[in-house]
């Protein structure tokens, strides 16, 4: 009962924060609100017992994302532009998509249902066998790094690619700058 109330309160605060982010126009205020949004999300993950996910959300949301938002604002501008065309059609599309998604959730099994497909496929195998096979107390780590090692390798490759992309676009590395200068001289 108490858990339900905590979830409801956290979700309502989350929705209010999201609405405020949509409504506000000052980007600095939005950055602060986005930080609070991530705090609320981490709290929700904690109440849902997803401690590892909450850890990630805490580490990224509290420290890094604020800094990166600010860096982006410093390189662009600090106010948002007014929309150039009326946005009723996108709003309708969003509402329709959201309604379809909500309708789709009606078919999903309840939260924590033992008969749900996610609980009967490979989950029980991981939970029962990882003590024997891997002998690591935190099953999340054993799934991430061993059973699903390929997926995690892909994740690391994604992080690597994203980092390289950011470096190519905005950093002032020497090779990149030289080519830019040459292009300017050519044109």
């Amino acid at each position, binding site marked *: 009962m108490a858990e339900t109330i905590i979830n409801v309160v956290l979700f309502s605060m989350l929705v209010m924060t999201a609405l405020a982010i949509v409504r506000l126009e000052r980007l600095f205020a939005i950055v602060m609100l986005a930080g609070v949004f991530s705090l609320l999300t981490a709290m929700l993950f904690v109440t849902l017992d997803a*401690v*590892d996910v*909450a*850890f*990630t959300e805490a*580490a*990224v949301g509290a*420290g*890094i994302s604020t*800094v*990166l938002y600010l*860096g*982006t604002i*410093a*390189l*662009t*501008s*600090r106010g948002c532009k007014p929309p150039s065309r009326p946005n009723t059609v996108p709003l309708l599309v969003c509402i329709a998509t959201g309604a379809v998604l909500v309708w789709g959730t009606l078919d999903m099994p309840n939260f924590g249902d033992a008969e749900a497909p996610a609980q009967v496929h490979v989950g029980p195998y991981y939970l029962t066998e990882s003590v*024997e*096979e*891997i*002998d*690591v*107390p*935190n099953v*999340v*780590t*054993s799934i*991430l*790094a*061993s059973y699903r*090692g*390929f997926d*995690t*390798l892909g*994740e*690391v*490759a994604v*992080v*690597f690619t*994203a*980092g*390289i992309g*950011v*470096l190519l676009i*905005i*950093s*002032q590395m020497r090779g990149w700058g030289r080519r830019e200068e040459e292009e300017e001289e050519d044109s």
Partner: protein
Amino acid sequence: MRHHLILRVITKLLVGPIILYGLYVQFHGDFSPGGGFQAGVIIAVAFILYGIVFGLRAVQAALPAWIVHRLVALGVLVYAGVGVLNMFAGYEFLNYGAFDPGHPSHGQHLGILWVEAGVGITVTGVMIAIFYAFAGRPPRMGDDDW
């Protein structure tokens, strides 16, 4: 921030514990929540905090940009290297059996440790490199824009 004595002292006090906690999360990740990704972000935050308070030049004297750029690639190399090493030892790719052939679960444990270290190195490198890239550019905004 040359005049902020309080901030400088507190930052010096905090950077060590943050890195220490990051290492705890990294190497204790198989017993408690956490792992390479979280640890990488935490360690990066320590350097970012130092860079914010003491300036980009000070943090780049401690951790030069070229080292960070090498770290980004090194992590992926460690991760994939563990897999390839196992292939050469006669196991499947990313099956950590080669670390301790006689005792499979020990091998798994060691393999997870190495793989998580690779993840941590890449994430640390990427986060710090992005911060260097953002902070190294002069701000575009004019004074009227402010």
